[in-house]
């Protein structure tokens, strides 16, 4: 199921503006990798290059290679649509489909793709995904109610359920807890702990404690200067990054002595 990601020499552009420069790293399968770094250093941009969502932005362009178990996502003939089916994504702001019920939201990935599934199978997928996202107990009696009628934290877990319903191999999460209260955050962190048994997970976060709590490895990104593209400073075992990083800038950032 879970796949290894190998990035080498990756740069991403918005039109003429280079947002990230020459990033290389390896993300281990069945692990959680956290991205930390100051605002605007290109964490979201980099994350979006990992499932070819970057090119959806007008002017978005990528150079370099992203290998998913030896297959280059940016190789010739690779269909971005199938890449996105393999590499799922949860966004910073919960974005359930407003025209759909809770059930339909979770089933959206299968239904929208026109996959023919029997009702009973779909029911099973929906239940499994909602259970996987820790939301089943709260919504099992109102699956036909609009998804937008849930609380923010529930909506975010609904979006996670929607993302895992299509059984991706990698799950990218861009600050999934930034709009949530501590309890929902904890629920999602627990969930990440469970999900890493099945998926390769990459999570962007501004919360150091969160990175320390949930991740196995942590990557620190930084800007060389104003107007400069973002760079990967270092990536290492989370414990090492937080206790004894090899670069001074990482230590400064983590301990709050920054800028």
């Amino acid at each position: 199921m879970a796949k290894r990601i190998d990035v080498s020499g990756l740069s991403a552009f918005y039109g003429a503006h280079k947002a990230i420069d020459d990033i290389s790293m390896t993300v281990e399968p069945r692990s959680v990798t956290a991205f930390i770094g100051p605002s605007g250093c290109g964490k979201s941009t980099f994350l979006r290059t990992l499932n070819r969502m970057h090119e959806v932005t007008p002017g978005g362009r990528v150079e370099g290679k992203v290998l998913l178990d030896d297959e280059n996502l940016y190789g010739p003939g690779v269909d971005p649509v199938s890449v996105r089916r393999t590499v799922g994504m949860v966004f910073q702001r919960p974005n359930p489909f407003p025209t759909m019920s809770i059930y339909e939201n979770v089933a959206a990935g299968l239904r929208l793709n026109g996959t023919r599934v029997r009702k009973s199978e779909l029911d099973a997928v929906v239940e499994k995904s909602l259970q996987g996202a820790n939301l089943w107990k709260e919504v099992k009696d109102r699956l036909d109610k609009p998804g937008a009628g849930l609380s923010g934290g529930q909506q975010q877990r609904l979006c996670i359920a929607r993302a895992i319903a299509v059984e991706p191999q990698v799950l990218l999460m861009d600050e999934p807890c930034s709009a949530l209260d501590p309890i929902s955050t904890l629920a999602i962190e627990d969930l990440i702990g469970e999900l890493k048994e099945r998926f390769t997970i990459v999570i962007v976060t501004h919360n150091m404690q969160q990175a320390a709590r949930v991740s196995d490895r942590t990557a620190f990104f930084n800007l060389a200067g104003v107007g400069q593209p973002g760079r990967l400073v270092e990536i290492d075992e989370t414990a090492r990054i937080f206790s004894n990083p090899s670069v001074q800038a990482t230590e400064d950032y983590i301990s709050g002595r920054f800028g």
Partner: protein
Amino acid sequence: MSGVTMDRTPVAGSGAPQPSYSLRQPRLPRWTPAALAAAAVAAGTGIGLGAGLSSHMQWGLIAALLYVAAMYVLATRVEGRRQAKDRLATSLVWVCFVLAVVPLVSLVWETISRGVKVLDVDFLTHSMGGVLTIRPGGGVYHAIIGTLEQVGIATAIAAPLGLLTAIYLVEYGRGRLAKAVTFFVDVMTGIPSIVAGLFILSFWIIMLDNGYSGFAGSMALAILMVPVVVRSTEEMLKLVPNELREASLALGVPKWRTILKVVLPTAIGGIATGVMLAVARIAGETAPIVLLVFGSQVINNNPFDGAQSSLPYYIYEQWAAGNEASYDRAWAAALVLIAFVMILNLVARGIARWKAPQSSR
């Protein structure tokens, strides 16, 4: 926590010195605007009668001016300048609203009161075939059929065309081509209906040598309808948050299915409203009908062959006939046309409400 509150309560209640300013300010009683409006109308009527002004419009304008001025003076006196400005703006908005509504209400009133005279089942189910225009009798059935068919065909042409154009512009359009399309849509918006009629006349009837028909009229109506549909659909599609598109794409849904299954359903209420309003707009067009459909006294159910009538054309024709019986028929047909447009509007609102995205309620 509660301890703190207990501590504070006596302090707050113990008559702490009042600050020099107060949060309370003298306010005019709530009924003031209504009372003042009544007084202004009375004064306007009085002045109008006294000065012997014949036009009721003048009475109304005097009353409106009096109302705005009096409200401002009174509010300045009692409530202070800031509140007075607020009152001034509010009363101006109200006066403008009334000025806008008066013609509309009087138009509907006039049409209903004159139109009901001959409007009955017979009128709706008979044509003018074999009826002398100077005689009472006859009906609009042939014109209703004509309008329904012509407008229906025009919609069948223009709605998909406009919808697809708008989808192209919002979802795919980049660069020169999109700019050119937008420009031409803007130009088309400004085409007078008579010009659209002339174009089809020279192209379809004169050059290609087809006869007059409802279909020829439909084509001209479609030309008028397309830009309206494009514009309204474009606005509605732009309102769909980008996050929804990205959410769908990130699930591995191809772009065309994302548009079809996520973007369009989210915007369908607004799109339907836009199409209905466009239909309402072309339902009243007369010029292309005169040029291309020719007009007829008898029922012609086939829009592709031979002259037809239509409601706006019928009104024009009956009014031009210039006698008591035809005037009555013209008003009744006008009433039918207004009712048709209103029903379309109601349907559009119904669809918009029914299809509106179910958000947190």
